């Protein structure tokens, strides 16, 4: 299984440098379609995305993305977003709360 990355040119270039083969460029408008396509590819084990480039993705796709197992989608550079919500709902306490909040 492979490591893949999708995002803007600047984002993915560094990964290509590190040897990642499955590199896909996409502008924020194209991200949703590309992500959906890659989620269905089971030869990918891990899919890295830039958290800041996910703005144009709808809530349904986002939910599918985050719940997917093969590949696992890892947002880079953002905060712990959906995990925090899940923790609140399952445990009942917002465990990600820090003094800053």
């Amino acid at each position, binding site marked *: 299984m492979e490591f893949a990355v999708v995002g803007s040119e600047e984002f993915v270039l*560094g990964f290509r440098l*590190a040897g*990642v083969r499955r590199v896909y460029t996409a502008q924020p408008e194209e991200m949703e379609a590309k992500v959906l396509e890659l989620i269905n590819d089971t030869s990918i084990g891990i899919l890295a995305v830039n958290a800041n480039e996910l703005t144009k993705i709808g809530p349904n796709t986002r939910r599918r993305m985050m719940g997917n197992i093969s590949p696992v989608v890892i947002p880079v550079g953002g905060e712990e977003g959906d995990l925090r919500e899940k923790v609140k709902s399952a445990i009942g306490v917002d465990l990600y709360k820090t003094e800053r909040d």
Partner: protein
Amino acid sequence: MAAREVKPTRSELLEIKKRIKLTKSGYKILKMKRDGLIIEFFKILEQAKEVRMKITKDYELAMGKIATANAVDGTIAVKSAAFALRLHPEITLRSKNIMGLVVPEIETNSIKSTIDQRGYGVIGTSTHIDDATAAFESLVETLVQAAEIETTMKKLLDEIEKTKRRVNALEYKVIPELEAAESFIELRLEEMERENTFRLKRIKDKAGAREVETAS
């Protein structure tokens, strides 16, 4: 049961008593499972928070290095280095078992490479490109770690929620309904017993009165 009629018989009562016993012990076990899952979850939570922070740090570092490389060597040099043929990270997925839950164990072949394994020539590139490469390799490794940890956490959370719901369903619906049925039957049986006793008494009294009549 609210949904079905309970027959107030002694055999029903025995059945229900047995069911209550079974349900209560199942309930105890589920509670233990829920608590065990939560303990496992707290162990992973710390790791998850740390790895999230590490991703952000590694990412910022890597972006800085590649910006430097772009500035010093030019984007063309960086791009051609990026397109050079070299080792790529491959992922092997294994599964392990936490409290009965199957979670992934992700391993990679070594992502980190030495300079000669990177495919681009040593002469034509500067250390900045090497630094950027090393920084991104580090980032990829961290991301792989994060993938394992976050998936495990998500699965744990889903299982915790499911188990929690079953525990609550047992505690607030199933067991109280069974106990209500039990006391209903006990009450009815008592009533019928009293009715019987009363009827027998009347018959005995009547039979006694008739005897007295025929005797006199």
